[in-house]
């Protein structure tokens, strides 16, 4: 390497395995070299001409300065769940109120360490998922299989990967290098949480952001690999409408229920079913993201509900075979399934359930064992064998099981409820604090209405049953009391469309950045809702009606489609599936969340023509200051939700969580009462300009749907808004504030830069407020947090 002239060393790109040497031009005594690229360890076929940015494949600290800029504006507010640290044998250490543990750590650093752990677990889970999918698909389709997520409509096929790693993947094989990078980073990130490593809370936070960046890459790799090979909808605004809800399932047929997030075993099931010409004679249904990806692969598959409804569907006896893959699967799913005599197939190395590995046994032998009841569960790590076994078992066992369920009769509930001691332990164990004792008392007196009322709010965790000293099956009581609603659940959800088209970005890039489309609302994540899924529907409908772009994914996308308007239409029928004002588009499963970040990144790239390649800081700065996007994870519960949120924080996109999200124990909050926190550079002049709290927070818990709606409207405000855009955004903020808070906002003076920002119909009200605050006009800057983006002042 010594022979490379120093100026050329900047082209040197080192990865774990490979040394890449790229020489654009070099004159020597013996000749002239042009466009030489030499790779040791891998043949490079990089046709991407975009220049490499400053941070390809960033290390743990490569983007630390950017992270610290955000963390200075949005300081962590910690709410420790526990006063202790129990992670090493020096402990337990009491860290209460400033005490340090045996290793020297204080509670702020410990709290941020927990955040880092959560985000690293999430990133590892998505990346592990991606690794499994990519390895499997390479085995099946080959390394040279092209990446295609939208044909000619999507030329920027992997915006997150391009941005973070500097790689433009063209084939499945290209994704391996991307994953190697992610895996290396996750290993480093986890090591940071070891005792006696990082000790500063903001450095832990920066690394949690890095975990979020890696997570987004992992998610993108998983989804573009499966879209490219499995014939999923390709950036299709008119992806098919899928039947959803147990009421849409023909339970007279054998039913295979797939639970989890990884589509690979389900593909085996669907393929075998089709090959055997049984697709008209069986039902394949799913819970959580596997359900989404099943329906992207096979539009006659059905979604039965979010991940939190596992207990109700297993106990309801609908499934003749339960197939478990990975992530968010109840670890007692087998115990529950055996009670309804439904055989279980575990299909993931990550979730073996204690079953014997039967991967190498003949399929018919496994089928015989499961149907006869000789064994109740098996581990099969060959997806095609999973398919054959699941289909054959379902067919044979359905007539034997006869949809045996584990729900009590109404008379049994009334009788058993009489044994309730009214000890309140069920309510005290319920995350929702549901008034179960009162409902049981009423049931004992013959009135099941209060139990029925709990059906919608119950999140299906079953903690009430674990707490009950007389072992009442309280969750089953609730499900039985609400059975009528459950059986009537029949809705439509749009199949996950995947990416956003480049042309859609071109159409909306300008109105988004100028503020004329008032915002992009991404309603994502799990189903740990405080009062059922209706809130998700209401929020989505409110903002779609206001001509925001509403993007959904995961369990939230299901909840959004689970209610109907006055004309009997679900959201996905009422609104278009396009990335446009008033569109409601479901991108797909958890891993499809990368397309939401991807859309924001593509606004910077396609509309604003900023380079993506390894250019994270500049693009994040652009998004933070110009793209009025907000994430809402109303029912977030998981570590994956934490890492997904973290990826958005790192891009400067604010994320709201519902009340249970407070249990993530750390918020990133701005202080609108501190004007010094809200200065940006005007890239045109280099002057510092106060742009107000736009956006005010990076991570915030909201307590009620009303608060969520007001916060969403406000958090879409960005420094770059034109006066017209700002006026539109303020009118939504004020309108929602008045409706839900009964008064004008108190902070309007912080968002008005010129009188032209004031909505026409609200001039009088605004004028009074502005006068009261001694408001002064200011400029609309070309906003940036990065001094290097300042252009020279004009003479």
């Amino acid at each position, binding site marked *: 390497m010594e022979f490379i002239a120093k100026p050329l060393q900047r082209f040197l790109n080192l990865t774990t395995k490979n040394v890449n040497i790229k020489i654009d031009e070099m004159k020597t005594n013996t000749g002239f070299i042009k466009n030489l690229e030499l790779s040791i360890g891998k043949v490079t076929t990089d046709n991407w001409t975009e220049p490499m940015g400053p941070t390809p494949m960033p290390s743990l600290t490569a983007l630390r300065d950017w992270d610290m800029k955000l963390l200075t504006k949005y300081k962590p507010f910690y709410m420790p769940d526990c*006063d202790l640290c129990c992670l090493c044998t020096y402990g337990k250490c009491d860290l209460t109120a400033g005490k340090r543990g045996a290793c020297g750590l204080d509670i*702020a650093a410990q709290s941020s360490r927990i955040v880092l752990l959560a985000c690293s677990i999430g990133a590892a889970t998505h990346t592990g998922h991606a690794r499994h999918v990519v390895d499997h698909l390479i085995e099946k389709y080959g390394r040279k299989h092209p990446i295609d997520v939208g044909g000619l409509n999507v030329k920027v096929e992997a915006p997150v990967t391009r941005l973070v790693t500097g790689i433009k993947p063209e084939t499945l094989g290209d994704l391996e290098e991307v994953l190697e990078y992610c895996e290396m980073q996750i290993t480093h990130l986890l090591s940071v949480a070891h005792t006696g490593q990082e000790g500063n809370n903001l450095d832990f936070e920066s690394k949690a952001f890095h975990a979020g960046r890696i997570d987004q890459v992992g998610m993108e790799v998983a989804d573009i690999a499966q879209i490219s090979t499995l014939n999923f909808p390709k950036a299709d605004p008119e992806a098919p409408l899928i039947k959803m809800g147990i009421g849409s399932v023909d339970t007279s047929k054998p039913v295979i229920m797939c639970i989890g997030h990884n589509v690979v075993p389900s593909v085996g099931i669907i393929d075998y079913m089709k090959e055997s010409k049984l697709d008209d004679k069986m039902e394949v249904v799913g819970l959580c993201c596997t359900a989404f990806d099943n329906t992207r692969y096979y539009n006659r598959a059905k979604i039965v509900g979010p991940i939190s409804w596992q207990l109700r569907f297993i106990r309801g006896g609908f499934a003749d075979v339960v197939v478990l893959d990975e992530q968010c699967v109840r670890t007692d799913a087998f115990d529950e399934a055996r009670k309804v005599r439904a055989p279980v197939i575990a299909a993931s190395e990550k979730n073996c359930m204690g079953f014997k590995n039967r991967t190498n046994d003949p399929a018919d032998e496994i089928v015989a064992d499961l149907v006869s009841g000789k064994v109740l569960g098996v581990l099969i790590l060959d997806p095609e064998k999973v398919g054959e076994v699941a289909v054959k078992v379902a067919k044979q066992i359905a007539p034997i099981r006869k949809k045996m369920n584990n729900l009590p009769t109404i008379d049994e509930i009334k009788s058993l409820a009489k044994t309730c001691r009214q000890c309140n332990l069920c309510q005290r*164990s319920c*995350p929702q604090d549901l008034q179960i004792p009162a409902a049981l008392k009423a049931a004992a007196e013959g009135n099941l209405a209060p139990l029925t009322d709990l059906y919608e709010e119950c999140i299906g965790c079953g903690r009430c049953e674990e707490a009950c000293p007389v072992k009442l099956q309280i969750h089953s009581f609730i499900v039985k009391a609400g059975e009528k609603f459950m059986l009537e659940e029949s809705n439509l959800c749009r199949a996950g469309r995947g990416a956003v088209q480049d042309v859609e970005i071109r159409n909306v890039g300008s109105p988004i950045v100028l503020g004329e489309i008032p915002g992009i609302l991404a309603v994502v994540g799990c189903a740990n809702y*405080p009062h059922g899924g209706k809130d998700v529907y209401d929020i989505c409908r409110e903002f779609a009606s206001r001509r925001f772009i509403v993007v959904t994914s995961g369990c939230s996308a299901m909840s959004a489609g689970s209610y109907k308007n006055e004309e009997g239409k679900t959201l996905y029928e009422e609104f278009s599936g396009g990335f446009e004002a008033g569109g409601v588009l479901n991108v797909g499963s958890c891993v499809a969340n990368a397309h939401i970040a991807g859309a924001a990144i593509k606004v910077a790239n396609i509309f604003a023509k900023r380079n993506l390649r390894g250019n994270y800081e500049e693009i994040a700065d652009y998004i933070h200051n110009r793209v009025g996007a907000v994430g809402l994870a109303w029912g977030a519960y998981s570590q994956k939700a934490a890492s997904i949120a973290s990826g958005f924080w790192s891009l400067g996109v604010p994320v709201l969580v519902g009340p249970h999200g*407070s249990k993530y124990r750390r918020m990133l*909050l701005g202080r609108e009462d501190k004007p010094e926190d809200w200065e940006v550079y005007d890239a045109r002049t280099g002057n510092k300009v106060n742009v107000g709290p736009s956006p005010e927070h990076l991570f*915030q818990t909201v307590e009620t749907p009303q608060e969520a709606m007001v916060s969403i409207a406000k958090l879409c405000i960005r420094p770059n808004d034109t006066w017209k855009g700002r006026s539109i955004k303020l009118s939504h903020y004020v309108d929602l504030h008045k409706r*839900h*808070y009964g008064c004008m906002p108190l902070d309007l003076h912080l968002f008005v830069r010129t009188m032209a920002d004031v909505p026409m119909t609200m001039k009088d009200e605004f004028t009074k407020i502005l006068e009261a605050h001694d408001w002064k006009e200011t400029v609309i800057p070309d906003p940036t947090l990065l001094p290097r983006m300042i252009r020279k002042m004009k003479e």
Partner: protein
Amino acid sequence: MSCEPWQCAEIAATKKANPIQKPEIVVAMIKKASRPILIVGSNATERWMEGKQLIEYLIDFAKASKVPVVATAHMVGEFIKRGYQPAGFMSAMDIGNRLVDPEWQGIDGKGHPDLVLLIGLPYYMEALILSGLKHFAPDLKTMTLDNMYHAHASWSFPNATLEEWAANLKVITSKFEGGQ
């Protein structure tokens, strides 16, 4: 009445709230404080006692005690609807975050609160905010007026029935000049 956290799993507190054995303790604490505030969460309209919503008890209390109210979530509108203007409103996280800043000068800008009363937030949110205050504002006195024991507060009522809760709130209100 039990001094165990209302939600069974919320046990990880080494420094636990003093139990409020009688409502007069609340009154004494408020009278002793120079700058108390009352944070009211969204359950103020969800909880009913003796045919009245919690928010109505709190309006009576606030009017009698003159303790300034900070309404969280959309509760400001609920107060206004009932003819009471709270001193301020902001999200629960925002008020928690301001309270851990020793330089914050309160809702009125005249000084940092020295006693924080909380009521009506979802139990787990209130527990977390109280934990944040315990760890990062150790000089601040915190007190929950809920009928559920909160280990992370400085002072908390033990778990109590709705009837006991209503009685406690009425006694507290009655001990102030305006509540008689």
